[in-house]
Structures are given as structure tokens and as C-alpha cells.
């Protein structure tokens, strides 16, 4: 269409013209502390989350070092429990979730043709709360009563045995929750109100869809977590007995409330991963995403179902049989839309024209290894068998498979995929591939033996174990050390790409890439889309209606 192309070149000319005018704020504080720009805020989230990955990772190294051999060699049991608790809190709330928010900030406006997020000042606050929250959380490790040591699930009465530092844990969680809620409000307001004309909902990239749905999940469940930890706080310090049986309360009620948050939470961590994989596979298969509409419906179904499965985390707590059966069936059901997504990804690859750059390698790794995590999840859903699996390393293996070679691999895939767009430079493909291969091999050495440990009878959250568990623990620890070290390569690749790489990236970057973000320069101008872009076949990857 002539008009379309003319408009596009006119618009890109406009953007280039604007480039001379819109300069980034001068001064470090002005640029980073006061920023309302979605790209800079995205960068802040991503850098923050990378730092938190290494902090949480160090805690994992302490854990794997202590578990390297039977016997206690390095830390006291109390400190070990602080490590397991903090490792999870940091990874879940400080690494994975902020990383996905960082991707949302960077990519959503670019993908829908919006100039920025809907509420740019609130966006700034959403980020800057986090460093304070996590400083507070980490500082509890240095307080007299020590950091939280009751597991990230904070079950009472055990969590109520913590000392004064527990108040800071609760406040930190409140702050993180407020940050997430504000961020999600921003995402929804942006997606619903600021799409470029012609960008209907069913033309949006799948990554935007998955974030739209994730944002609703966040708003629904973060307040629930806030309620739960507030009740812990008042039980601990203000004499209430929500969860204290002696006062008429019920410790199990906490578990219900917590997991009502907790289960959707794990889907919050994984839905954006589904979105990223759905962007990457089509690009490197040079074929459109198979079954776009089905993928949208499948994501929505997963989100809906995630609200009615929570008690599968509580099969041993003494629930009535009917309850256990209901939650078993609903949990089994979630396998259906998840399977549909996997089949659609494979169908996207099928009869494509594939190349295997680093983003594609991580995306394929995700599909295989997340699916394995899904299988152990299906096994866990079988309540009668779960009476043996629960609270063992089988569970630890399951959730690490879906989170590490699951969500984290998707984060890395997305980072490699969009880094050239963000920085304007190509990363070292050789080192990217080395990072991938080291990671994928070591992550399996780290987590696969943990399935066996759980089946053989090793419980979770223990600093020392009986000698029959020694071999697989040692193997797992070695995998852990290699995996941790390999992530330094990731940092090296990023730093080299941003500061040293001499290979410029084109606008399109990847041959098969389709979508609005690739119509901008690399890096995009500080203010992209001052005028709305034109939406047509050349700028939209997912347009089943256009076919």
C-alpha cells in the first residue's frame, strides 16, 4: 500500500528529525533517579534484577556447598535456614519478577506503538521502591534475630518464632507488593488505552498479551499476600491470633491464604516467559506463530485455572477427601492449555527455516526443559503419590525446572534477542553460545538428580542428610557451581555488547523478526512513536484476520 509506506518513511523521517531535538536528560541523577522514560526504567529494572540474581545465586552456592557432603561443614542449621529462605525471597521477588517488569517496560510501548507507559511518574516510583525494599530485606541477615528462616512460605507458627527482624521482612514484602501492583496497573492502563490506532487486541504480539494477563493476576493476588503477611505481623507484635490455635486461630488458614496468592504467583513468573518464547520461535523459524488465537485463549485459561488449584500445595495438611479430589482434578486440568502451547510452539518450528542463534537456543531449551518440569508437576498433582513427594527434593526439582531452565532461560533468551535493539550493537554470538551450552548442561546436572533424591526419601530444607543421599547431592552441587560460574559469562557478554562491541545492529536485527519494535532504529530514539505508527501487514507479525 503506497500510502502506508509513504506514511512510514515520513514517520521515520520525523523520528530522525525528533532525534536532534529530544535529548536524554543531562546529569546522572536527572537521567536515572528522576526518569519517567519507559526504556530507562526498563534498564533500571533489568540491571537491578541481574544484581539480585547474583545475590540470590550466592545464597544458592552456600546451600549447595553445605550439601556437597553429608555432615555439617560450613554453616549452622539456623543460618542454613536463613539461606534457603532468603534465596527464594530474593529470586522470586527480586530477580525473576523485576526482570519481567523490566522487559514489560522496555517492550510493551514499542510493541503497541505507544510513546511511553500510561503513567510514567508512577512507573518511576514502582522501580525505586525496590532497592529500598531489598536493602531492608537483606539487612535482616545482619540483625540480632537474623534473617527470616521459616522458608519463603513463612508458615506460622514457625515464622512467628522469628524476632524483631520479622517486622522488616513484612515491610519489605509490602513494599515489593506495592511496586508490583503499581507496575501492573501501569501495564494494563497502557495496553488498554494507548495502543496505536489499528492495533486491535488480537493483533498485539503475544508477549503483550501474556503481560496483560499477568498484570491482572498480579493485581488479584499481591493484595492477598499483603493481607496474609499483615496478619502475621499483627499475630507476632499486636496480640492477634489469626493463626494461633491457642487463641482460637488456625495455622492452616495461613496456608490457604498464602497459596491462593502463591499459585497464581508462579504463573505470574512464567506467563511472560511463554510470551517471549512465542516471539522468538517464529523469528528464528521464519514462520508465523502457529495458532495465535489458540495461544491467547490457552494463556487466559491457564490464568483462570491458576486460581482454583492452590491447595495442591497442601495435600498433607489434613484436608477432607472431597477437597483433595477437587484440587487434584483442577490441577490436572491445567496441563491441557499448557500442552496446547507446547504443541503450538513445535508446530511453529515444524517446516520452518530455522537458524540457531543464542536466543533460539535458549527458547528451545525452555520448551524442552519447562515441559520436563511440567511432567513432574503432573506427577505431583496425583494426590495419592504426592503424599510421598510432598516436602521432598522431588518438589524442589520440579519447581526449579520450571523456574530456572524455564522462566530464567526465557529471560536470557529475551535478553539476547532484544539486547541489540536496546544497545544498537551486536553481542558476541560465540560467547552467547558458550554461555548457553554451559548453562543447559550444568542446569541439568544440578537439578535432575534432585528428582531421585526426593523419590529416595530426602526431605526439603535440611542442612545435612543421611549417607545414602550423598552421591546425588555431590553431583547436584557440582552442577550448581558450574551453573553459577557460567552466569558470569552472561554478564561479560552484556558488558562487552553495550560498551565494547564494534558491530552495529540494524533496525531489524534478525532476518525473520516482525513487529513494531523492529521498525525503529537500534537503539530506538529516546522518545519513540511521538506520532502513532501505521499498523499493517509489514508492521504486525500476528494478523490472522489479515490472512
Amino acid at each position, binding site marked *: 500500500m503506497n500510502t502506508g509506506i509513504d506514511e512510514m518513511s515520513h514517520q521515520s523521517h520525523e523520528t530522525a528529525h525528533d532525534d536532534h531535538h529530544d535529548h536524554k536528560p543531562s546529569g546522572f541523577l536527572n537521567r536515572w533517579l528522576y526518569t519517567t522514560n519507559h526504556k530507562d526504567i526498563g534498564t533500571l529494572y533489568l540491571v537491578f534484577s541481574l544484581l539480585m540474581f547474583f545475590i540470590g545465586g550466592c545464597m544458592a552456592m552456600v546451600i549447595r556447598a553445605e550439601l556437597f557432603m*553429608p*555432615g*555439617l*561443614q*560450613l554453616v*549452622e*542449621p*539456623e543460618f542454613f*535456614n536463613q539461606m534457603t529462605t532468603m534465596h527464594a525471597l530474593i529470586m522470586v521477588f527480586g530477580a525473576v519478577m523485576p526482570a519481567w517488569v523490566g522487559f514489560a517496560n522496555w517492550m510493551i510501548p514499542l510493541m503497541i506503538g505507544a510513546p511511553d507507559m500510561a503513567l510514567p511518574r508512577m512507573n518511576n516510583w514502582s522501580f525505586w521502591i525496590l532497592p529500598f525494599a531489598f536493602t531492608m530485606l537483606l539487612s535482616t541477615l545482619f540483625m540480632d534475630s537474623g534473617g527470616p*528462616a521459616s522458608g519463603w512460605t513463612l*508458615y506460622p507458627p*514457625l515464622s512467628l518464632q522469628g524476632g524483631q527482624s520479622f517486622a522488616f521482612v513484612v515491610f519489605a514484602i509490602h513494599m515489593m507488593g506495592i511496586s508490583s501492583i503499581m507496575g501492573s496497573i501501569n501495564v494494563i492502563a497502557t495496553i488498554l488505552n494507548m495502543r496505536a490506532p489499528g492495533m486491535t487486541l488480537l493483533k498485539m504480539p503475544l508477549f503483550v498479551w501474556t503481560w496483560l494477563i499477568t498484570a491482572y493476576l498480579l493485581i488479584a493476588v499481591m493484595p492477598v499476600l499483603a493481607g496474609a503477611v499483615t496478619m502475621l505481623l499483627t499475630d507476632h507484635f499486636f496480640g492477634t491470633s489469626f493463626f*494461633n*490455635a491457642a487463641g482460637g486461630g488456625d*495455622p*492452616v488458614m495461613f496456608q490457604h491464604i498464602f497459596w491462593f496468592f502463591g499459585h497464581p504467583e508462579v504463573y505470574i513468573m512464567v506467563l511472560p516467559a511463554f510470551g517471549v518464547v512465542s516471539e522468538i520461535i517464529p523469528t528464528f*523459524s*521464519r*514462520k508465523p506463530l*502457529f*495458532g*495465535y488465537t*489458540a495461544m491467547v485463549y490457552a494463556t487466559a485459561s491457564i490464568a483462570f485455572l491458576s486460581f482454583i488449584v492452590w491447595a495442591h500445595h497442601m495435600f498433607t*495438611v*489434613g484436608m477432607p*477427601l472431597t477437597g483433595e479430589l477437587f484440587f*487434584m482434578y483442577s490441577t*490436572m486440568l491445567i496441563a491441557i492449555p499448557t500442552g*496446547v502451547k*507446547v504443541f503450538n510452539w*513445535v508446530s511453529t*518450528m515444524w*517446516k*520452518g*527455516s*530455522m*537458524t*540457531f542463534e543464542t536466543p533460539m537456543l535458549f527458547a528451545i531449551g525452555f520448551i*524442552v526443559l519447562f*515441559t520436563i518440569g511440567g511432567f513432574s508437576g*503432573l*506427577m505431583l498433582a496425583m494426590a*495419592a*503419590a504426592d*503424599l*510421598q513427594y510432598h*516436602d521432598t527434593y522431588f518438589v524442589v526439582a520440579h519447581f526449579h525446572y520450571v523456574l530456572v531452565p524455564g522462566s530464567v532461560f526465557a529471560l536470557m533468551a529475551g535478553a539476547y534477542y532484544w539486547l541489540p535493539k536496546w544497545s544498537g550493537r551486536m553481542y558476541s554470538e560465540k560467547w552467547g553460545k558458550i554461555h548457553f551450552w554451559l548453562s543447559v548442561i550444568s542446569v541439568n546436572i544440578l537439578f535432575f538428580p534432585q528428582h*531421585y533424591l526426593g523419590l*529416595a*526419601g530426602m*526431605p*526439603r*530444607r*535440611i542442612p*545435612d*542428610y543421611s*549417607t545414602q543421599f*550423598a552421591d*546425588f547431592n555431590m553431583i547436584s552441587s557440582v552442577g550448581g557451581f558450574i551453573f553459577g560460574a557460567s552466569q558470569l559469562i552472561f554478564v561479560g557478554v552484556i558488558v562487552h555488547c553495550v560498551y565494547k562491541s564494534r558491530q552495529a545492529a540494524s533496525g531489524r536485527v534478525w532476518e525473520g523478526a516482525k513487529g513494531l519494535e523492529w521498525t525503529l532504529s537500534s537503539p530506538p530514539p529516546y522518545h519513540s512513536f511521538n506520532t502513532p505508527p501505521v499498523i499493517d501487514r509489514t508492521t504486525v507479525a500476528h494478523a*490472522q484476520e489479515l490472512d
Partner: protein
Amino acid sequence: MKKQNTFIVAAAVTAAVIAAFWLLLVAPGYTGNEINMPRGVTLQSELSYQLHMITLWICVVIGVIVFSAMFISIVLHRKSKDHEAARFTHSTRAEIVWTIIPVIILVVMAVPATTALVNMEVAPETEMTVKITGFQWRWKYEYIEDGIEFISSLHSESNAARRLISGIDPSAVENYLLDVDNPMVLPANTKVKFLITADDVIHAWWVPALGWKRDAVPGFINEAWTEVLEPGTYRGQCAELCGKDHGFMPIVLKVVPKEEYRDWVRQQQRKMAQEQAGLTDTRKALGHETGDDVQPQTLARVGSGK
């Protein structure tokens, strides 16, 4: 197919056949110990094990099918082999098929899943009751009908070896971290009801050979049951984080023939009577009235140095 592709596919098929061979013939021999869930010694453990194996096999088959499709595609449909991308974008029929088939598989799985759970959870008429109380960090067992009770704590040898930099090699300790001073003793082939609770925080009582675990929640009583079909010694651990020594409060269950059990009960009753007599003396010596203020478990706690 080009020669290179044929080779890769042939190698993959060979690997798959070898893996299938191993899985079918060798792996099922791995029960218990290092790799697989134990078959156990009760009806419940057998049900749990079978459900576990059925689900595992179904997952393996689905995984092999899906990953083979992916692998074949990765080998054949690549740009470097000059494969040109097809243009199809969707297929409603495919979506329906690969939704319906998994639903059918799940419905089929739900049948043994349901019967297993019902059989495991619904208690039959039981012949005796043991009340289990979790403490930080030991278990108390009370035999309701026979009137005996005692504390079961980590065996002193393990307790010494597990200290930070104790200098003692764990492999030198027999049943390291899985041994106690006073094991629970039960008669074989007897339906036993358990009443499980806790005194301070949530614990969980778990003996893998029995096939289940149950949370011990303070202020609430959870019911469970078992019937152990084979005499022997079975070991388990606390399975809910309960504080610093969560990893150091194991469970040992000695299942003996009914006659031997009755002998043991008589022995325990005698021991308790002696302790009561000793307590009365101690109370009198301390100048207390004879009352319930000094409990056997206090003596036990004092005795173990905690």
C-alpha cells in the same frame, strides 16, 4: 533425505531404542534406595508407587513423542539445509485434536488416581491407636489403649556427629541421622490408627515405607492409618520445616510379630511404672505434693541433655 540427515536420524532412533530398552527392562528393577520411590510395606505404599509409575510412564511416552517431533524438525527444517519455510499459520482442527486427546488421557489417569486416594485416606476399622506429637525437635508417642508413652529423639551418635565441624565422619555412624533412642514399635498385620498433632510449630510425620506423610499441626489432630504387612525396621524423617533442627528429628518404626509386640508393651509398662515410682520419690525429695507437675518427658529431656 540427504545422507547426513539419514545418519542423524538413524543415530537418534538407535539412541531412543536403547533408552527404551533400558527403561523397560532395567529401570523397573530400581525400586527404593537410590533412584525410585520405595514399593513399601503397606497397601498404601503400593498404591502410591503404582500411581507414580503409571503417571511417570505416560509422561515419558508423551515426552518422547513431542521431543522427537521437535528434534526431527530441528534436524530437517533448517535454513542451512536450504529448507524453505512453509506458510501455514493455524489449524482449528489440530487445536481441537490436541485438546481432546490430552483430556481423554487425563480422564483415564483420574480413575486410578481417585481410587488410590480414596483407599489411602479413608480409614477402615482400626485395632489400636497411637498418638504422635511433634515437638521442636523430637517426637512423642502415646499408645492410647496400652497406656504407654515416651519421647523419641535423634540417636546420640548421630547427634554428636552432626555438629558443625564435629570431626566425626558421618559414614562411620550407622544409619546416620536416621536412628533414634526409642523407636516406635508396632505389631505387623494390625490396623493402626494414628492421631497426629504438634506442640509448638507445624511438623510432618513421614515414613516412606508406609506410603504417606501427614502434617502435625499444633492445636489440631490429623488422623491417619496403616497396616504394615512385613516385619522390619523402617526409617523416616520430619517433613515440614520446623526450625533449626528440622533435619535432626527422625522417625524409626520397628514392626514386629504380634507376640513380640505384646512383650514389648509389657516391658514398656513396667518401665513406666518404675519411672513413676522414681518420680514420686523425686517429688517427695523436692518437697512437692504428689501431682502431675513433673512429667516423664521432662525427665527424658533432662536425660538427653537438651
